[in-house]
């Protein structure tokens, strides 16, 4: 287990390293920040001075090396726009996004798993068929459209829920959270619902398929023959067997929630990382883009590592094949 973990960590570091190169080169290709940073009527000397100040006159590999050096020290450079360390700006927006992502993934699991279990156990019931048909809709509806419809219905027509912003936040561990106030919770409702619909559908279908696959297995019959209760059968024997694909999906979806809830955050004016990155891309704020992408890479690598560790606890056969 420990050697496996060490191997896996080395692998992760390598992935991050490769990503730094790709990200750095990619961002250099998409545009020259100089034209945005410097006013058009600046003269040649002024221009050269600023280019030198940001180190943009150096060759690409030397820029990359100095960027890598900074990265290792947790320094992605200062944001061109905010004039503050890019990492700091992003991290200050992170709690809002994390809050949204955690709430959305929790909701998806809490609703998706029971629905999937039900649909798997009683595939011919009306409710199960109805939910399965509904889940196709949940897959297909575009996020932005769903968000707008939800706003129109709950905020404009019914007037029950606020349409934008985070509402009142409470400081906890030095960070503001919407979780702890009614106002904050009511602001969470619509964006979380928007983000969850797709994931509920996905998890529900996966759980259903898993249950349908596991139920006819001999070991389930044998477990029944032992006289186990229905609950024990379902929550221990069935659920543990279907968790591997479900955990994989939850991990991936959680990562993408953090990284790509851009559209939802924009529509609901949620002050998270997604909205920040869109703004930064618009003004070609290079350090911000790079720092953001690196954080996302880091989060994805970490989540995958956690998922892999979960595999070994969920299915003992995985451990053997890796050793």
């Amino acid at each position, binding site marked *: 287990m420990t050697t496996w973990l060490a191997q896996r960590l080395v692998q992760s570091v390598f992935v991050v390293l490769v990503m730094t190169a790709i990200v750095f080169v990619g961002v250099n290709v998409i545009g020259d920040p100089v034209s945005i940073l410097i006013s058009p009527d600046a003269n040649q000397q002024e221009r050269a001075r600023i280019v030198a100040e940001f180190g943009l006159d150096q060759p690409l590999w030397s820029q990359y090396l100095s960027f890598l050096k900074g990265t290792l020290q947790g320094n992605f450079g200062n944001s061109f726009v905010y004039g503050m360390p890019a990492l700091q700006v992003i991290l200050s927006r992170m709690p809002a996004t994390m809050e949204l992502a955690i709430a959305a993934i929790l909701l998806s699991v809490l609703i998706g798993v029971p629905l999937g279990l039900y649909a798997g156990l009683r595939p011919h019931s009306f409710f199960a068929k109805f939910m399965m048909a509904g889940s196709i809709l949940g897959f297909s509806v575009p996020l932005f459209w769903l968000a707008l419809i939800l706003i129109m219905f709950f905020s404009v027509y019914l007037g029950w829920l606020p349409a934008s912003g985070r509402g009142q936040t409470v400081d906890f561990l030095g960070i503001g959270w919407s979780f702890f106030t009614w106002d904050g919770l009511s602001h969470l409702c619509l964006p979380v619902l928007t983000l969850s619909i797709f994931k509920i559908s996905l998890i529900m279908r996966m759980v259903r398929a898993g249950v349908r696959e596991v139920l006819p*297995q*001999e*070991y389930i*019959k*044998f*477990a*029944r*023959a*032992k*006289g*186990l*209760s229905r609950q*024990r059968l379902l929550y*221990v*024997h069935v659920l*543990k*067997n279907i968790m591997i694909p479900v955990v994989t999906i939850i991990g991936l979806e959680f990562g993408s929630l953090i990284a790509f809830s851009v559209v939802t955050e924009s529509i609901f004016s949620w002050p998270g990382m997604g909205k920040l990155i869109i703004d930064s891309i618009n003004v070609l704020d290079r350090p911000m883009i790079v720092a953001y992408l690196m954080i996302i890479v880091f989060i994805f690598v970490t989540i995958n590592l956690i998922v892999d560790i979960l595999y070994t606890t*969920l*299915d*003992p*056969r995985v451990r*053997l094949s890796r050793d």
Partner: protein
Amino acid sequence: MNGFASDPKTMHSSSRALLDVRGLKVKFKTNRGEGTAINDVSFTLRRGEVLGLVGESGSGKSVTGMSLMGLIENPGRICGGQILFDGIDLAKLSDLEMERLRGKRIAMIFQDPMMTLNPVLRISTQMIETVRAHDDVTLVEARRRARDALGQVGIPRPEERLDAYPHEFSGGMRQRVAIAIALLHKPDLIIADEPTTALDVTIQAQILSEVQKLTSEYGTALIWITHDLSIVCGLADNVAVMYGGQIVEYGPVAEVIRSPRHRYTDGLLNSVPSRNRRGDRLRQISGFAPSIFSMPQGCAFRPRCSFADDACHQTPPLATHGNHAHRCWHPISSREGLGS
């Protein structure tokens, strides 16, 4: 624990049948139509008795076993007959009552030991949960019982092996674990559904003798479902040959083997290669077992039987001679039987 019966071993005399199945009928309703998987199956089993239930796949032998366990699932259902187990009709019990009985007084062992244990749970988990499903004991006590049961079925170092996962065992060892689980509550009846079919011959013999030893030790009655008559020969007291959802021949093993009455039993016996002389062509029963959705009218074996005539369009009644019964219009006479 069981609300409806205390220890039967002291309550009833041993002469009374432990299991008395009468006219059992199981149907499956699918979109291909309704099929009768078991039709009018009756047999009895005394305490400690071993019954071999023999037949081809699709003959209804496994369905018979499953219906005794109350494990017939949709679209199948028991739609006639009685399963009197120690005086209680199992066919009438509620799900919860059946749940309390399963694993406690009737246990089952399945065919493929690679598939019967849950791959993601430790052996200890799967054994302890069985103990605690029926007896209100502490974890420590349940674990002790599980360890003892493993030791009894001949698993070396049971204390260590208890915490292993199923994939860390060989097929034969897994079947031993399954048998240990079945024996945990010292049931009155064990239904073994082809438990040695998937195993090597040497392991098969080990498992057979192990089961034989343990059941006679505890006085456990045993229903051994198999397609292999040679296994039944050495193991069972009585044998029931099933075909097309019916018992076509039933009687003491020695007698059925020596002088089979039903043409199908005779065919089965002749299909055992070791009974042939070297150089002889292997004999076979031509054709296939009928599907439950297209059962021939009358005797189900009619289309494959060279002795069939018009009379066979009527379902033959169960004709009994002493303790040997058969369902055939043209049974093999004892003299003819000797010759075959």
